[in-house]
């Protein structure tokens, strides 16, 4: 049944517009247009991506370039089959080739879903159908063998950011554009918000992002709320548990959230939760506020990597990363300022060195902030007048896990428990997946020293297990 408002709108404006309204500053999405174009031969296509990725905008921009008759219908909440048919109207039995986009398929009731599934299985002649929704699992269209696209064709890259900045007259550098993409995972709603905020206030892009998050964070909150409302309760619960720190974001859990369109995306072959959702500040929904910090995952064997909830923390400068590496190898993650000054600025002017350390700490904070939100940085990294601390749990730090296994194995040997010792040696050997901090300058004595010690322990482990 059409709502009372829909009837009023019809009375005022006549027939519904063919295409939904989109932001006047929207820029074309070449990757989406390419995908839609290259799959034009298929009668049914499906586009799914988390809320705010710009699905509707991208599709409307593409439809504007199409010559054939087209209709884009947005399903209202709890859209039943009758309403679906009413909205789609004659487009369901077209006399000439017609494109029909059905947007918001996750809002359909089961009977409307079933109707859309039947439509996908046997689409009417001359109808070119595109389903758009948050989740690829909203419709059971596995038998239709339809081409499907996800966030990868919608995500803003640095070039998209440049084009939108140009529309708004915001001057930026490559570094600023890349930083925005990284901080937002290319999330359209955030990218556009940050750029508009920078433009209207005449401020640089990084400030635009910070101000948008501060003043318009409710938009993220509403996207999360809306998505959870129409999600499978188990998926919604998993999402809340992960954000609340009650459950670790394992690859399996993240894959499930990605399937459900709950703000997890495959970026570079790895599924990650959107960093801004992860760092969601206290908002209107207390249930979304993380109670505890999600632990750091620190990889030290091979290339050094720090991740939170699957999201990698990227350090802008090598020096900043080196300091974090140095702290990561400490059992308590702590080093005094004096120690850091002597290690990283040996023999230099003291005042300059102190300034250098202050800058490095600030850069490290910023790197963490971009991933976990500024308000939660201190849960991971802190610097006071005397010392600098990296807060990581042993369970998330591969180096500490490795050392712990070696120590356990030695202790087991000493106490005459060869089986336990072998288990620990095996575990240690498995943890040692490559040289410690590979790729870092071995000229740094502490790196060379730690790498030699780790290699010796790994060699011992291999020897003991006969590898």
């Amino acid at each position, binding site marked *: 049944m059409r709502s009372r408002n829909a009837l009023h709108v019809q*009375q005022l404006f006549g027939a519904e*517009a063919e295409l939904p*309204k*989109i932001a006047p500053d929207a820029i074309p999405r070449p990757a989406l247009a390419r995908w839609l174009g290259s799959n034009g031969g298929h009668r049914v296509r499906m586009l799914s991506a988390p809320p705010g990725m710009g699905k509707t905008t991208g599709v409307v921009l593409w439809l504007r370039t199409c010559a054939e008759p087209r209709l884009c219908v947005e399903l209202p909440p709890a859209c039943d089959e009758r309403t679906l048919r009413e909205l789609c109207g004659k487009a369901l039995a077209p006399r000439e080739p017609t494109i029909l986009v059905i947007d918001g398929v996750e809002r359909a009731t089961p009977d409307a879903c079933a109707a859309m599934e039947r439509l996908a299985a046997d689409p009417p002649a001359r109808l070119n159908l595109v389903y758009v929704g948050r989740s690829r699992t909203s419709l059971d269209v596995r038998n239709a063998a339809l081409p499907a696209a996800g966030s990868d064709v919608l995500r803003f890259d640095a070039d998209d950011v440049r084009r939108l900045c140009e529309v708004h007259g915001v001057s*930026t550098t490559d570094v600023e554009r890349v930083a925005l993409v990284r901080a937002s995972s290319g999330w359209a709603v955030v990218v556009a918000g940050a750029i508009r905020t920078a433009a209207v206030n*005449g*401020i640089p892009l990084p400030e635009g992002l910070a101000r948008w998050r501060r*003043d318009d964070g409710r938009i993220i909150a509403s996207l999360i709320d809306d998505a959870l409302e129409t999600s499978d309760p188990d998926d919604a619960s998993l999402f809340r548990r992960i954000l609340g720190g009650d459950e670790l974001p394992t690859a399996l859990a993240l894959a499930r959230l990605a399937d459900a369109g709950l703000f997890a995306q495959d970026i570079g072959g790895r599924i990650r939760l959107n960093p801004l959702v992860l760092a969601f500040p206290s908002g209107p929904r207390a249930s979304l506020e993380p109670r505890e910090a999600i632990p750091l995952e620190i990889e030290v064997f091979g290339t050094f990597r720090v991740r939170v909830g699957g999201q990698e923390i990227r350090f802008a400068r090598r020096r900043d990363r080196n300091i974090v590496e140095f702290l990561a190898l400490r059992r308590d993650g702590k080093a005094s300022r004096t120690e850091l000054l002597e290690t990283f600025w040996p023999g230099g002017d003291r005042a300059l060195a102190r300034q250098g350390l202050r800058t490095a700490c600030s850069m490290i904070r910023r790197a963490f902030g971009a991933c976990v939100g500024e308000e939660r940085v201190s849960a991971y990294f802190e610097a006071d007048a005397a010392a600098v601390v990296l807060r990581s749990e042993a369970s998330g730090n591969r180096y500490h896990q490795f050392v712990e296994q070696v120590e356990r194995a030695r202790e087991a040997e000493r106490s005459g428990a060869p089986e336990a010792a072998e288990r620990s040696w095996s575990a240690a050997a498995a943890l040692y997946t490559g040289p410690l901090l590979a790729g870092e300058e071995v000229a740094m004595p502490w790196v060379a020293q730690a790498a030699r010690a780790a290699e010796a322990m790994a060699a011992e482990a291999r020897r003991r297990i006969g590898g």
Partner: protein
Amino acid sequence: MAVERMPFALPSVTSDTVSLTRFTDWFRSYARVPLRYVIGQPGAGKTTAVAIWAQQQKVDNVAWISLRAGTDDAELVALLGEVIEDPRAPRPLTIVLDDIDRASASARSLLAELYLRAPENLQFIYVARAFNAVDVIEGEQRGVVAVAGGTQMRFGAEDIALFCEVMGVPFGHRDCAQLELATDGWAFAVTGAVRVAKAFGLSASDALERWRSTQARSVERIVAEALKVAPARDAQDLLDIVEGRAEAAPATLRRLARGGLFVNTSEGAFAVNPIVAGRRTTCLDAASPGSPLVLDMFGRFRVVHDGVEVRFLRRRDAQIVQYLALQPQGRATRAELIRTFWPDADPQLGAQGLRTACSAIRRALAARVGRQNVDRYLFSAPAQIGLRFDAVVSSMHRFVVHAELAVAAEARGASSTALAHWTAALQLYTAPVLSGEPFAWWIEERAAAFEILRQRGRRFMREASGAGAVS
């Protein structure tokens, strides 16, 4: 009919009103957005601000509908239908719906969808006291709604200066900053204080106390009226906070702010309107970052903070500030500055020269405002450098605002408004822009445009005095 309707008829505004600079910038930036949603607590000057904008538009391109308490969806549709179906109604058309808080729930529910379904050639402006009058979050998510809240609706120091100028009230920029601080830019208090200043020959900030003592009842009335229509819990919470019976918890303040109940937000923090709370704000001290940086752009260039001139060591440094001040948003890209000031230099040397100049400018400002406050006035990002017009007041910018308001007033035949603004503009134009500075093509280019405006103002004044009177 349960509504007061004036299709195509805008509310009248007095001749001494000024447009708020931040609001105007916001309004222009979102000119093409299907819905602009203007929110402000009672007395914030929402209707006036939108009416000033509307008066600057082409006649008849704006239809204005003020809603009355209880307007329901059917009545709203009838009203809109009359405006939309009027064969004389031009397209594109912007429909302003004022006081939407007063409408019934059914009408507000319709308003939440209307702008999404309207044809492209219809735009809407909703004006409300409370953010939650209409749920526009779907539009915000999509970028088809722009929301102007507390910041844009506040009188900044520059707006207070503009208002003093048009009222003919002598002022110092420190007075303006003080008045902004004491009122948190609440239009009702700012305009009241400046009118008192004019009536009693007081400075703007001194006039506030006199206004407070004489207008306490008006403030009480405006608060009481707002509380009457507010949810009972919100009304009680505001009273408890104001009367010191309860702590101002952030969650409560956020709720009151969303309900338009005299809670301001600034940089993410909430606070009760200082006038409503009966709070006396401490004065700006000499080193306060609250004082704006004042740029004298007519004749010799001067940068003044709290009455003391900022000294630039090198002419090049001052010229870069002048160049930025001449840009509409006060900013320029590094590449543009290098092209302008180091046109023949090796790009790397130019970039180094610019870095040195920025550093020297920062040092010069730091000597006056303190190193920790420099970023309040100037930003220096990797791609661009700019003045922050939030905290920088430029005589040229004020001249432009007055001239634009005067031209718009002329166009609609409001001679007394035009006279007030031309008078203020011409008083600012004491000499051609930067005419006391060495020749530079980028000065000449802009100065010519201002000279044309000045001549237009003088012509108007001559004609007005020739006519002997203004309507």
